[in-house]
């Protein structure tokens, strides 16, 4: 069992460092999240700014943007996902090793944004892959991305290593490969992965009570 916080502090004052495997494991993971180096649209410019000296994402252990999905832990969906690009995004996600995380950055990545009613834009990447943190904004400021990053760190830190809440890489039965949509004659097929994007609740309306 975890040691109580107060006791831990007291022991720390005496020069004794107490921790658990769970804590030290997550502490290591959350402080070396390597994002995948890829940008989709204008949000990518803000993402680049976040990594530069002024905002300095390196303070959070995430300065190493990997150009290969095999070496990356975090996918920052920075921008509009067109239907032409969506299969490639899902394929890149599949190629990342577990544990992997996704930040959907900006209005387009979370819902299609201003292009929602267009024929060529995917209405949110969470139709195909699970998203850990959504950031609203068009585009979000670098501070917002840093906040999302800290939210993700808190999420990693809180993950237990056993039980039903354990991360996917410790769960052999968890879904690890997500089907890549194919580009059909009129739309992506299927239009959404129902396992990650279940149908929303019916729209409330007076005429639709049957």
């Amino acid at each position, binding site marked *: 069992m975890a040691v109580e916080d107060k006791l831990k502090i007291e022991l720390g004052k005496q020069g004794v460092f107490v921790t658990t495997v769970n804590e030290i494991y997550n502490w290591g993971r959350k402080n070396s999240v390597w994002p995948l180096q890829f940008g989709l649209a204008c949000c990518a410019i803000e993402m680049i700014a976040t990594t530069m000296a002024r905002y300095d994402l390196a303070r959070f252990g995430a300065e190493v943007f990997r150009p290969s999905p095999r070496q990356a832990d975090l996918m920052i969906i920075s921008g509009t996902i067109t*239907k*032409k690009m969506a299969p490639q995004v899902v394929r890149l996600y599949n190629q990342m090793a577990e544990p992997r995380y996704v930040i959907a950055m900006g209005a387009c990545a979370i819902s299609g944004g201003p292009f*929602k*009613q*267009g*024929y*060529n834009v995917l*209405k949110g990447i969470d139709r195909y892959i699970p998203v850990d943190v959504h950031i609203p904004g068009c585009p979000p400021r670098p501070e917002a991305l840093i906040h999302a990053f800290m939210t993700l760190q808190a999420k990693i830190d809180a993950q237990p290593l056993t039980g039903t809440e354990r991360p996917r890489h410790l769960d052999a039965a968890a879904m690890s490969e997500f089907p890549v949509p*194919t*580009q*059909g*004659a*009129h*739309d992506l097929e299927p*239009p*959404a992965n129902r396992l990650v994007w279940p*149908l*929303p*609740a*019916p*729209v409330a*309306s007076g*005429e*639709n009570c*049957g």
Partner: protein
Amino acid sequence: MKSTEEILALIHAALPAANVELVLNPSPCAQHSLRVAPADAFAVASFLRESDELALDYCSNVTGVDWPDKEITEKVKVTQLVDGEEKIVEETIKRIEPGYLESVYHLYSIKRAHEAIAGPVVLRMRTINRTDQVQLPSLTFVWRAAEFQEREVFDLFGIVFTGHPDLRRILMWDEFEDHPMRRDYVDPDDYEYEPTPHDEVLKRAEQQSKPTGVTA
């Protein structure tokens, strides 16, 4: 910069057989254009580019226009035999004017750029219909810049440019079959959730949220 009428006169003087006509734009901008028959397009385009007086060597934009089939209601006076008497009766006749597709080229001159430019010279071509006879000659060999933009027009409007060196879709994927910029394009019904649906989106959301197997 010469007016569109002057350019038309120059074309007629150089190519008397070419079928080119003036399309007037009645709006305040008065941006008139030249409509050229597809068969004469290459000769006319080459002349516009090569002639010293015009030297329209820069094709800045190629786009398309979709003119769908139009239903026209007309009232026609017809003489008819009514009770053995000839009478003039008014009849309403509905006829369908077939639609067509247009490709539009915007041309400028870099060589004669010192002359005041009022706007682009607009060149248009029309297809025969919107379904099977949608071929127009490619002007990529006259203006190299037209290559990608003709591909775009092919992709979004479905105009087939004959003689184009590499006519493939450019924005949509290769397996895509529709032409999204056409007026009768129906986009895929993939709105599933809108936080505050209204109007058209509300209707679609209601349709989608109906349980399957129940038809209204």
